[in-house]
Every structure is written in structure tokens, then in C-alpha cells.
């Protein structure tokens, strides 16, 4: 392949495959199993595999897409700031539930991987699993983990959370949409938030708040742990 055309070629392929995956996702009424990333990734892996393209050249060619993740993460400040009245009014439950949820997510995921004898790069990859995907990838990179694996784990966590949240909350008899939404956002980021908005607008607002706050909180917690543990 001529080097000059590589970004054009791979960006075109990526957009076409993604758009196809996204229309399937829309046709399925946004079912969690039909998430466009879950559908598009295996197709693109197959294309790279059969065309004998190495991942590094694909990554370099599609770098404009990865680059946008940085400003997108910075922009997460806006929804947090816009919900400041909500945060002030319910500071206590939000603060305590966020801390409890974030710590539970990290310790349970890392603990189970430790029990399976996973090495440190896998542990730091799964540690930010409850944060939104771009933050988890950035954290995995910062802590010496594997960003692609972090993306896969976080997306899978989103599918699990999106599918189990409603039946679990019904089983627990949690009727308060603030509690339900916030928990969905803290544990299952964008997927939990999307699901919460389908159920109830209040649940959706609290889910997006839980997702945004947990991104900052878990990232800060893990970076402090990273400093302490060296």
C-alpha cells in the first residue's frame, strides 16, 4: 500500500464499517449486544488480518479518531458543571454512594484478577473498568496497562450493566430513580446511562452525573494508588 494514501484508506474503511454497524445498532433499537463498537471491531480485525496489515500502521493511519478522545474527555467537565445544583442538593448521598461504588468496582475487579494470578499490566488495565471508555484507556496507558484491552473490558462491563441493572434494582426493590440511575452511571458508564434514559428522565440525569463523577473520582483514586505503590 502506498504510504501516502494510508490515512485516507483506513479512515474511509473505518467510517464505512462503523456506519454499517451503527445502522444495525439503530435497527436493533440500540440493543446492548448490538453496540456499534462490538459489531465493527471484529469486522475491522478481520479486514486487517486478511489484508496482512499490521496494527501499528492501522493505528497510525486512523490517529485522527483516537486524537479526538482527549478533547472529548476534557469536555466531560461541562455536564458535571451543568449539574452543580443537583450535586449541591444531594451532596451526601452522591458523595458516599460514589465513593462506595468506585471502591467496590476497583477492588472486586482487581481482586478477582489477582486470585487468577494475573500480572500487574492486566491488573492496572481492569482497575478503571467502571469509568467511561476514553478515561479507562487513558488510565490504562498512564499506569502501564493495555489500552485496547481496557476498551474491550469497559465495553463489556457496559453491556453487562445495561442488561442487569433494571432486573437487579427491581429485585432489590430500589424504587427511587435517583438511586437507580446514579448506580447505573457509576457502574456501567455510557451504557448504564443510555439504559437509564430509556427508563426514566430522572434516572438518566443521575446516571450521566454518576458516569462523569466516577470518571474523575476513579482516575484520581487510581493515580494516587499508583503514586503510593510506585
Amino acid at each position, binding site marked *: 500500500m502506498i504510504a501516502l494514501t494510508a490515512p485516507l484508506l483506513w479512515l474511509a474503511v*473505518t467510517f464505512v464499517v*462503523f456506519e454499517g454497524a451503527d445502522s444495525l445498532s439503530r435497527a436493533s433499537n440500540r440493543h446492548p449486544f448490538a*453496540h456499534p*463498537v462490538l459489531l465493527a471491531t471484529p469486522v475491522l*480485525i478481520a479486514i*486487517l488480518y486478511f489484508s496482512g496489515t499490521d*496494527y501499528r500502521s492501522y*493505528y497510525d493511519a486512523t490517529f485522527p*479518531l*483516537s486524537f*479526538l*478522545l*482527549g478533547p472529548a*474527555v*476534557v469536555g466531560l*467537565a*461541562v455536564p458535571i*458543571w451543568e449539574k452543580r445544583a443537583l450535586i449541591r442538593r*444531594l451532596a*451526601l*448521598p452522591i458523595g*458516599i454512594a460514589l465513593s462506595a*461504588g468506585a471502591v*467496590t*468496582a476497583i477492588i*472486586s*475487579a482487581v481482586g*478477582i*484478577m489477582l486470585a*487468577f494470578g494475573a500480572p500487574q499490566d*492486566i491488573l492496572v488495565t481492569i482497575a478503571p*473498568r*467502571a469509568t467511561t*471508555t*476514553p*478515561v479507562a*484507556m487513558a*488510565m490504562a496507558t*498512564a*499506569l502501564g496497562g493495555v*489500552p*485496547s*484491552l481496557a*476498551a474491550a473490558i469497559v465495553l463489556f462491563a457496559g453491556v*453487562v*450493566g445495561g442488561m442487569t441493572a433494571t432486573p*437487579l*434494582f427491581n429485585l*432489590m426493590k430500589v424504587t*427511587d430513580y*435517583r*438511586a437507580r440511575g446514579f*448506580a*447505573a452511571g457509576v*457502574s*456501567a458508564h455510557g451504557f448504564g446511562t443510555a439504559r437509564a434514559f430509556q427508563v426514566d428522565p430522572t434516572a438518566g440525569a443521575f446516571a450521566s452525573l454518576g458516569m462523569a463523577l466516577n470518571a*474523575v473520582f476513579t*482516575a*484520581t483514586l487510581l*493515580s494516587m494508588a499508583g503514586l503510593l505503590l510506585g
Partner: protein
Amino acid sequence: MTMLGAIALLLVFQLCGEIIHRLSGVPLPGSVIGMILLIGWLALTRREWPSLTAVSGWLTAHLSIMFIPAAVGLIDEGDALTQYGIALVLATIVSTVLTLFVTASVFRWALRFSEGGKDAAT
């Protein structure tokens, strides 16, 4: 502020975050430091910036395609997946459901203290 101004703002805050990250050695990613700085800036300026809301909303709405280049990187993670794939699936399921349970329980419990009948009507 124009759209371009909002893009410039996001990039400048990310750049500041990246500089702080490199100089201080804090393992917090530059983009996350940039996010915290932007919250501080919004708190200082105390006004609405519709174009910033529009640009950051557009980016958030299209996050999925931005993950694709990284997700395709799984092509090189065959070893990790064959060795720890099942453990990763199990850990992710347990951790996700447990976190839902703990967060919802604690939120419901703490709600009693912050609302204590005071605004039971709302």
C-alpha cells in the same frame, strides 16, 4: 465564544493538563487533569457558554467511533486473551453487578439522612 473558540479552549486545557502531567509525574492522564481545570475555569467565569456545551456534547455523542482504533488493537492481545480471557469476563461481570448493588444500596441509605422528611414532598 465561537465554535472554534470552544475547540481552542478544549485543546488548551488538554495541553495544560498534559504539561502538568509531564512536569509533576502524576499518573493522572493530561486529558483528565484538563477536565478538572475546565471545571475550575467554569466555576470561576460563572456563566453559560452555549458553544462549549455544543462542541463537548457533539464529541460525547460521537465517542464510539473514536474507540475503534484502540479496540482493533485487541488483534495483538491474543496471548493475554487466551490466558486471562475467562478470568477477565468473570471479573468484569461480578464487579459490574456488585458495583450496581453497592452504589444503589448506599445511595438509598444515604438519601434518608439528606432528605430526612424535610422535602418528602419532592
